[in-house]
């Protein structure tokens, strides 16, 4: 039976028609897009950098077991503790027991997609622990009981006045604030300061982990991350197994690629690097939770595995014509956009992700901007095949394609098919336009006329000319 009939084409539908959402997204993505193009254009060695980054990541992925062991050793050498989690459940349990062992009831968090993937906040809440997001955009999402819609700008679907209204209902209740960005930032700052100073445990994501030195790196733009990483007594960082780079020199390559690709900045505002713990400076306890959650299965797919090179810069989202018109929520995954369309079906394989490989016109804009050269269209086509081989396409579609393939491998049959088409060309050409036609023709016809079938095929003409 077909399980991929609806999915994205249905979930994107109301969003395509939402003009406010469209306006928010269009203005946000097009301005990041232009900024990115400008600062990337300045680098004459951009292509070289991309290839270097691709090579480093492939080197890591091809020898992941060795690098993971090296990372564990070096993190523990500098006083950190490494925890291995096979899946989200295990990772969540590990984190919960760490929090409980300190008798804490609340934690602060800085932007970690991986913990969103694990649905850590819900898990903690169910266990009586409050998790406060400190990244401004994540905070906005959390306050609105909303879901992130962009990897880097999780609240990209909201504009300033929508955020002001949200703050007035939550952290600025009873106060009159304007939608001036500075005032909005100040409102969140005073709310967060109190959290930073009163919370004992912080949970962070990881952008890069250096195997050689045990150094962990978080890249952010507000400085709230820096607070999270330095003020609390206990720091728990969560990373997927693919986030490793071999040495500090390799990290330099990514620190050049990431800000230009993600925010269109030449340099990232707050880049925090730490190696283990130091008495009297920063957290006294450091835990690194390393999560698999099907990544090792993805690694086994020779085409699909390149998705694990991703550094979550979100450049592919910002150039994607589909994402720009659907927004992130239509993907129904923490990883939306082109990277989500290749990552979600591989990591989660759940029903709603099965339609995602088709949520693309294969225009290739994503591949062109990807700083680690993930050939997203290639992976999409590969995953389409995989989903179909697993039996998720409809019998009608499969039969149609099978019959077509047979006719196309037999020139005589193909010519016969052409003749049949020509005999019905007049009624077809006269068909009423519009969406009332059956099946694919109707889907086409809602907004487009059909091309007219001419009197003669090319090969008939050729024969005529030849003879």
């Amino acid at each position, binding site marked *: 039976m077909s399980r991929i009939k609806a999915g994205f084409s249905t979930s994107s539908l109301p969003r395509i028609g939402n003009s406010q959402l469209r306006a928010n997204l269009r203005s946000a993505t097009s301005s990041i897009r232009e900024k990115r193009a400008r600062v990337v254009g300045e680098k004459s060695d951009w292509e070289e950098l991309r290839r270097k980054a691709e090579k480093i990541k492939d080197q890591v992925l091809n020898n992941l077991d060795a690098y993971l062991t090296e990372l564990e050793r070096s993190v523990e050498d500098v006083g950190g503790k490494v925890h291995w989690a096979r899946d989200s459940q295990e990772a969540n349990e590990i984190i919960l027991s760490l929090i409980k062992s300190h008798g804490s009831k609340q934690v602060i968090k800085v932007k970690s997609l991986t913990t969103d993937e694990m649905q850590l906040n819900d898990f903690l809440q169910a266990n009586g622990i409050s998790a406060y997001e400190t990244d401004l955009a994540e905070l906005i999402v959390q306050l609105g009981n909303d879901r992130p819609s962009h990897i880097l700008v999780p609240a990209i679907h909201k504009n300033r006045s929508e955020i002001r209204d949200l703050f007035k209902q939550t952290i600025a209740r009873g106060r009159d604030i304007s939608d001036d960005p500075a005032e909005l930032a100040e409102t969140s700052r005073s709310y967060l300061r109190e959290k930073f100073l009163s919370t004992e445990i912080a949970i962070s994501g990881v952008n890069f982990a250096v195997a050689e030195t045990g150094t962990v790196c978080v890249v952010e733009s507000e400085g709230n991350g820096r607070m999270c990483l330095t003020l609390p007594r206990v720091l728990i960082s969560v990373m997927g197994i693919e986030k490793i780079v071999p040495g500090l020199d390799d990290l330099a390559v990514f620190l050049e690629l990431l800000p230009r690709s993600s925010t269109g900045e030449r340099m990232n505002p707050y880049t925090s690097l730490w190696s283990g713990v130091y008495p009297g400076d920063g957290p006294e306890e450091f835990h690194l939770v390393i999560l698999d959650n099907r990544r090792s299965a993805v690694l086994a797919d020779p085409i699909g595995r390149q998705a694990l090179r991703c550094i979550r810069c979100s450049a592919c989202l910002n150039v994607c014509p589909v994402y720009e018109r659907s927004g992130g929520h239509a993907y129904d995954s923490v990883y939306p956009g082109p990277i989500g369309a290749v990552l979600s079906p591989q990591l989660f394989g759940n029903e709603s992700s099965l339609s995602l490989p088709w949520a693309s016109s294969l225009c290739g804009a994503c591949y062109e901007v990807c700083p680690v050269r993930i050939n997203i269209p290639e992976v999409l086509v590969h995953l389409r095949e995989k989903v179909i081989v697993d039996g998720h396409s409809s019998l009608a579609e499969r039969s149609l394609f099978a019959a077509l*393939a047979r006719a196309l*491998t037999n020139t005589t049959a193909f010519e016969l098919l052409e003749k049949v088409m020509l005999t019905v060309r007049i009624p077809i050409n006269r068909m009423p336009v519009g969406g009332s036609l059956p099946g694919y023709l109707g889907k086409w016809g809602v*907004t*487009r006329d059909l091309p007219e079938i*001419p009197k003669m095929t090319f090969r008939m003409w050729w024969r005529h000319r030849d003879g």
Partner: protein
Amino acid sequence: MTRKASLFVSCFNDVLYPETARSAIRVLEKIGVEVEFPSNQTCCGQIHINTGYSGMAVPLVRHFVDAFSGSKEIVAISGSCTATIREHYLRMAEKTGDLELVERTRELVPRVFEFSEYLTGVLGVADVGSSYPHRVCYHPTCHSLRSLHVWDSAITLLKAVRGLELVDLPHAEQCCGFGGTFSVKNSAMSSAILADKVANILASGAETVVALDNSCLSNIAGALKRNKTGVSVMHLAEVLAHGIDREEA
């Protein structure tokens, strides 16, 4: 010795756009290329591969390789078919485990050229003597732009056409929303992307939109017609065939 080229027309053009193939022949003959049409050719398999029926397309790859085994240079009038052959054929042949097919595919793929690429890149021709006195914008299709990287060749050829005024298409590099079966599987999304392309075409002031692929053009034309814009579409080959005297061929 005259240069010989085999034309790959594609199933889509064979049935729906024979004029493009005839135009390509006229242009090639005008510049002294002898054109053949290996009559066993059918389809490159793109629709199957891109929709996810790669397995079913393997016999199509074999069929294509057989049909063109005697051809030295193969000229395709579709950018996306050319890209399909370059990007997928070898991998698909390898999947069969048939070493002979792999070898033949490996030899064949570098001999396939997109039409404009063949003219400017292989033959070094920029001006074929055509004239088309109209205001034209060029839509670089996704495959021609980002897979084949042939943005320049069409521009070079168009600039040499007498009387043709080439105007800028805003956001030219953005997809038209076609994407093969994407246009019907995600038809609302496809239409939303197309609507912006149409708006940009109208903003350009062009009378004709030119591209290297009739599949994208059928999508664009479908909306241009539906909205009664009066703007026409044309494959590059048809523009280049304009004003070339048949007798000279």
